[in-house]
């Protein structure tokens, strides 16, 4: 991944980690979406933001 993209992704995730609205499960999934190098889709983000705190019941 190009340096600037990596820098933006890192800064974005660091700030989000301090946001009370974003719980740890969301953060983990968001990391996967923005750092994978693949193109995330709208549905991917919608799913992540609808994740319940504590994770989904499996």
């Amino acid at each position: 991944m190009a340096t600037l993209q990596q820098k933006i992704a890192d800064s974005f995730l660091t700030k989000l980690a301090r946001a009370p609205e974003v719980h740890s499960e969301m953060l983990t999934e968001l990391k996967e979406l923005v750092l994978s190098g693949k193109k995330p889709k709208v549905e991917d983000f919608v799913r992540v933001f609808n994740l319940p705190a504590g994770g989904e019941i499996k």
Partner: protein
Amino acid sequence: MIKLESVHIEEMRGIRKLDTDFHKLTFAICGPNGSGKSGVIDAIEFGLTGQIGRLMGAGTKGLTIGEHAPHVDMVKFPDAALVRLGLYLTDIKQSATLTRKVKAPSKPTIEPATEDVLRILSEVAEHPEITLSRREILRFILVEPSARAEEIQSILKLDQIGQTRSTLGSANNKIQTAYRNAEAASTTAKEALQRHAQITSLRADELLEAVNKRRQTLQLEALDTLTPDTQLDSGLDAEKRLNGANKKTSLKDLESLLLETQTPDELAAAEASKAVSIIEQLQSNPALFAALQRLSFLERGLELADTPQCPLCDSSFDSVEALAAHLRAKLEKSKDAQRAQRTLSESGAAVGRAAVKLATLVNTALASCDAQGELALIPSFNIWRDDLESFRASLSSVDGIVAACTRLSQGWPSIPPTFHAELKAVTAKIHAKPDQTALFEAQTFLTIAQERLTAYREAMRRQKVAKAAADAAKVSYDTYCAVTDEELNNLYDEVQEDFSRFYRIVNGDDEGGFTAKLTPTEGKLGFDVNFYDRGLFPPAAYHSEGHQDGMGVCLYLALMKRLFGERFTFALLDDVVMSVDVDHRHAFCKLLKTEFPDTQFVITTHDRLWAEQMKAAGLVQGKSLLFFHSWSVDTGPMVESNTEIWDEIEGALEKGKVEVASAALRRHLEYVSRGLANDLAAPIPFRADGNYELGDLLPNVLGKFKKLLGEAANAAQSWGNAAQHQAVLARRDEFAVRMAATKVEEWAVNKAVHFNAWANFGKKDFQPVVAAYKELLESFRCKGCDTWLHITPRNNPEVLRCVCGAVSLTLRTKAK
């Protein structure tokens, strides 16, 4: 990342076969137009990236690598077209070989195929911007701000950042809409419970008071508190849980529906008007309307694009990124259409929520009528409810909203004409029914209260979940936007600073105070430059074409430095300073040497003077300078060199082509004479056009060399160095013999004739001429290191020598 050690090209573009050592040094390739210089660039670019920039982009429709990368005579044999690059990977300090064939451009053969080597070469392949041509310079300088933003964002690979931002934004919008819908559903459920309980506010104590009144009637224990687990109808056994037949509740439900239809929802009405207004604007502006209709199409295409084939029309692009950039460029072009789309979507969602509320009330009234046994209205209520739900669904797309324009302008609820009369009649009928017994009323009250409380609790739960998602989505989107804007602003500040400094290095003589300003705004990148302290203007406003070319290269270098930092170790510059004048080119050499000392540039030019200027400035060395003197379809570029030329001449003579051999000899002698004239400081009569011919050069070079040998002999004698003196005399005598053999002084009488007269020679006559000149040139070379003799220092020569020092003849005589 990499440096180029060697290149082997076969049957690529205009090149049949070419082997060149680049020595990891900055390299210049010079030749007239059409001599194959850019073919070398194309081949190197293809080797590194699998692409050829000249076959892509504007004006190249129909050109493909498969058909147009191989030599024109080898199109049917793409396997024969290949490039082999010897590379030095600076990150890991290791060499590697990369071979790429036209037949399989995405599958190069790499040796050694270690993880590190593959990773680095894969990264290089993602950066076709290592090649800069004049066509690309124009992309930065002479374009609209919105296009410039795209070009620079493309070169810096920022388009993925924009894509992520856009995707996050769309997700945020969807989630915010879902939250507003959940909020509306929660309000509707709350109103239904309030209406049933006949309380003004949904406070626990008020609800419990109403509930306990009925519980007392049924001799059930009163409820003290309302907790999430409280069942309002607890204690009622299954037989007594009666649905929907509570007369008061039914009347309230019908009354509520009547009120809703008689008192229009002002907010929804305003949004409907707004939507109608936008639609009318679109209908009066066909171009805008068409752009709006294409928007959804393009957005969908962008979502679906995960291969280089367009999912909409199957057109092939060179990469997924190229397809995505193409679609985003089309999307960007219609900001007005995007604004219209946004307004329509928001208004449609608002009206949709009002339609949901009305449909819910109709449904509730339906249930009440059913429970009361009043079935006449049910079919029309069902139809109307279905119509409202269908209408709401249509408002989820722009096309649906546009199609609903008439309904939006004429009263979207579309209340059936007989509705009010029929509703009043049913209401009267229910009124007329005998009051329910207190027991019956209490039972139905508690049953319905519990149902509506359950529904309200579920709606509240969904609203809470939706709010959590909406809060997370908003903060994520806002954070991403803030981070991106900050980083981009920093990036543009740095690029602007470097660009200005580079330009001042090149143009410091007349624009020492030059500054520039890159101004990013939404989707655009403004680019203004200082014009002699008169203010900031677009580059094309007052600066010359040459200055704009210089700006393009400086901006490119600033961007590459920003993109790669210390890893910017290689770039191909294809004739990018053609409009820059001589003085500024010298400064350009200084820029490359001082600001990019560790970067290997491969520079092409058609201007021999510029090539020699690069050598004089120390940007390139003799061994990193390649001259093409001509090109033909059969041979490809013809290289000027001291070693291969004799094979070329011999080959031509073998075929009886004396005119070809003589032309080659003449060109080679001109090539060598130019270098020797410089190295020996030979007195050449000045020509303003710089087009020195062999007759201008060679006789004067020979004369100067003879003079230098004389000086060397005198010097040796003055120092009492008998051995050196004898050696120099022998060298001088040998030189005289060789010179005589070429008869150059005889032919100098008629300069216009003598070299051309070679073409009239037969093979047997010309072979001795070739041999004589070959031998003559050996007088100027060191047998050990094979370099040309030169004087040093240039202004006040003291020595005539070679590079290795095996030949070192003192020119300074001993002071008496």
